[in-house]
């Protein structure tokens, strides 16, 4: 093995010394022992590799990432494995449609209505949901939505006030922030409360009586309360969803 090839092979040796017995490296290591220039280069490279490994291992990981992963998978499991896979496929379709829609948007104005808001936001629930914040406490999530995204005055429906939360996040719809708070029911199913400012959607639902409608894979209830418009979505029977209002 010439010096050039030996140097090439030596680059694959890990710096912790655990490859010393690997027969694939024996010839190159022998060459490094015989040739002082090659040997000193190899030693310097190994030392540098050790330092690089240790520096990279010290790069911090975002706080809350682990909890976000666990919470997200919990939501998926509550939807059921089969439903989740269908959801992923549907999410891919939604992504494709969204891309096509984005192109179309550059040439034509999108129809903006409460119905289109509900349709679009509920479709997002079919895909994976990554939370910005995870907490079991609704008050913490309401506070985050108000302080970080300006979605204030969120009222939790009576039937969900005792339910533990999973997390929350926001999307942008029609250039306005739309919030999502996810709750975990006793039977392990998740329900999602979507909230957006009343000013952001034309013809919002009537305050007096929630509109209940099946949209895609979800049973939904929609209503207006104060300055906000709400959509509650769950994969439940209509009666079960109505009990949460």
């Amino acid at each position, binding site marked *: 093995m010439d010096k050039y090839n030996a140097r090439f092979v030596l680059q694959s040796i890990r710096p912790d010394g655990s490859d010393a017995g690997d027969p694939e490296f024996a010839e190159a290591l022998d060459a490094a022992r015989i040739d002082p220039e090659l040997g000193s280069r190899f030693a310097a490279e190994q030392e540098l590799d050790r330092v690089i490994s240790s520096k*990279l291992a010290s790069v911090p990981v*975002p706080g809350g990432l682990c909890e976000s*992963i666990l919470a997200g998978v919990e939501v998926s499991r509550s939807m059921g494995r089969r439903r989740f896979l269908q959801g992923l496929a549907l999410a891919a379709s939604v992504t494709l449609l969204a891309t096509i829609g984005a192109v179309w948007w550059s040439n034509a104005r999108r129809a903006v209505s409460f119905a289109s808001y509900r349709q679009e936001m509920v479709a997002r629930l079919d895909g994976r949901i990554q939370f910005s914040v995870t907490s079991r406490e609704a008050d913490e999530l309401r506070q985050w939505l108000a302080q970080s995204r300006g979605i204030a005055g969120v009222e939790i429906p009576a039937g969900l006030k005792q339910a533990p939360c999973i997390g929350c996040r926001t999307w942008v719809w029609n250039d306005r922030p739309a919030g999502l708070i996810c709750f975990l029911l006793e039977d392990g199913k998740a329900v999602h409360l979507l909230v957006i400012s009343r000013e952001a959607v034309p013809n919002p639902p009537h305050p007096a009586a929630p509109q209940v409608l099946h949209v895609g894979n979800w049973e939904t209830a929609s209503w207006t309360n104060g300055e906000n418009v709400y959509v509650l979505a769950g994969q439940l029977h209509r009666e079960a969803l109505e009990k949460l209002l």
Partner: protein
Amino acid sequence: MPVVVDTVFEQLVRTHYAPLYRFALSLARDEVAAGDLVQQTFYLWATKGEQLREPRAARSWLLTTLHREFLRDCRHAQRFAHVEVTAADESEELPHVAPVEQMDGRAVLAALMQVDEVFRAPLALYYLEGMTYKDIAETLEVPIGTVMSRLARGKDQLRHLLCVEEDERRQRVMAVRPRVAARERVHG
């Protein structure tokens, strides 16, 4: 407060999420995209991979899946398939360790993120996961010779980028020093 999920899965996430995130960050070069890649990988585990109970198999599965997802997202698979196996370029200078020791981990990561994509994944597995070239080949699903070539060329690139990083740092220091010296003369 985190939601309670089954202990085996939670343990798996807690064990692997940090190294997976660093690997994802080195590939995607964006914190949000890296977080998404890690989350997507664990979702796929929850739906497809959880039958693997052997810890080493789980680690390898997660890394391979994350890399596949990255390639799928970027649609770079064809570009990656045509890299030739060649030896490393001969570099004249010995690598300098001391300047890198002074660097912050983020600066080293920033240099790694500038390495060509095709070399970055094997380098990240080598440095972050301490993998052998054979394990890297298995994880990235490329021939062993290709991995050795990519490691050699990638290391050369990384060392060059670390030198550039160090030169820039030195220049920043030199730019500050005359101002400090001038202030000292005025006040001294």
